[in-house]
C-alpha cells in the first residue's frame, strides 16, 4: 500500500516541481530510471513468488542504478557512451520483459 502511494507521490511531485536536471546527471538519469524500473519489476515478481525480501530489493535497486550509471560513465570515457547506454537499455528491457512475463503468469495463470 505504502509502496503504491510512494510511487504515485513521486510522480506527482516530479510533475509539479519540474526541476531541471543538473548537467552532470543528464546522461545518467534515463539509464538510472530504466535500471530502477528493472529492479522494481524484479521485486514485484519476487513478491508474487513469495520470496520478496525488502533488504534484497533495496540492495538490488541501489546497485542497479549505480551500475547502470557507472557503465554509462565508463562508456562516455571510452567514447562509446551512446552505444553502451543503448546496450544497457536493451539488456534491462529484456529483463523487464521477462519479469513482466513471469508476473503475468503468476497473476493470470497464462
Amino acid at each position: 500500500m505504502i509502496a503504491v502511494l510512494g510511487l504515485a507521490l513521486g510522480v506527482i511531485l516530479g510533475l509539479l516541481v519540474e526541476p531541471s536536471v543538473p548537467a552532470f546527471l543528464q546522461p545518467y538519469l534515463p539509464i538510472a530510471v530504466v535500471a530502477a524500473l528493472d529492479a522494481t519489476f524484479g521485486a514485484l515478481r519476487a513478491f508474487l513468488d513469495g520470496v520478496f525480501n525488502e533488504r534484497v530489493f533495496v540492495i538490488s535497486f541501489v546497485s542497479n542504478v549505480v551500475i547502470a550509471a557507472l557503465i554509462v560513465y565508463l562508456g562516455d570515457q571510452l567514447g562509446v557512451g551512446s552505444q553502451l547506454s543503448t546496450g544497457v537499455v536493451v539488456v534491462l528491457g529484456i529483463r523487464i520483459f521477462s519479469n513482466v512475463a513471469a508476473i503475468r503468469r503468476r497473476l493470470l495463470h497464462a
Partner: protein
Amino acid sequence: MPDSALDRTRRALTARPSRSHAVVGVLLALLGFAGAVQVSEVRSDEAYAGTRRDDLIQLLQSLSIAQSRAADQLTELEQTRDALQVSSAQRQAALAESQERLDALRLLSGRTAAVGPGVTITIKDPDGTVAAATLLNAVEELRDSGAEAIEVNDAARVVAQTWFADGDDPGDATLVVDSRNVSAPYVVEAIGDPATLVTAVAFPGGLTDEVEALGGTVSIVKSDELQIESLAPERAATFAEPIT
C-alpha cells in the same frame, strides 16, 4: 504455503504499514520522481536533444554555409539597390533639368502663358502717327533690358519670329503684329525686372521721347504680378533640324 499470488497481493494492500513498507515506498517514490523529471526534461528540449554529435556538427556546417550564402546574396542585393538608387537619382536630375529647359524653351517660343513682375506700357496714338518701326524699336529695347515675355494688346505674343507692319491705311492708328491687327492705344506688357524695363523705355531719345515727338503719349506702370496669356502661333521648322 498454499498461498496464491492474488491472496498475497490482497493481503499486502491491506496490511498495516511497517518499516520495510516505508523503505520500499521511499525507493519507489524516488523512482517515480526521477521518471517524471526525465519525461518533462525530454519534452522541454525535443528538437536536437537526441541528435548525435556528428549530426549536430553537420547541421551546424550546413547552417553556416547557408548563412554565408545568404550574406553573399545580401551584399549583392545591396549593391544592386545602390546602383538602382544612383541611376534613379540621375534620371530624376536629368528629368528635372529637361523640364527646366522645356519651360525655358516654351517661354521663349511663346507657347505657354507666363506670369511674373514687369511693366505695362500704354502708348496712346490719337493721330495714328505711331508706326510699326516705333513699336519694333520699343520691343527691341525691352528685349535688350532682359524682358522674358512680351505681348501687345493682350492679343499678340512677341517672340523671335514676330514681325511688325503698318496697317493698310496710314492714318487709322492700326498696326499688324504677326498677321493680327492691333489698334491704338497699344498696350505692351513685358515680364522682367521692372526697374530695368522702365529705363529701357524712358531713357532720353527712347520710346517716350519718340512717341511724344509723334504726338502721342506713353505711360508706364510697374507691377509685381503681370499675366501674359496670349500664345504665339505654332511654327513647325521646315528646313532646320536639331543636331544632337
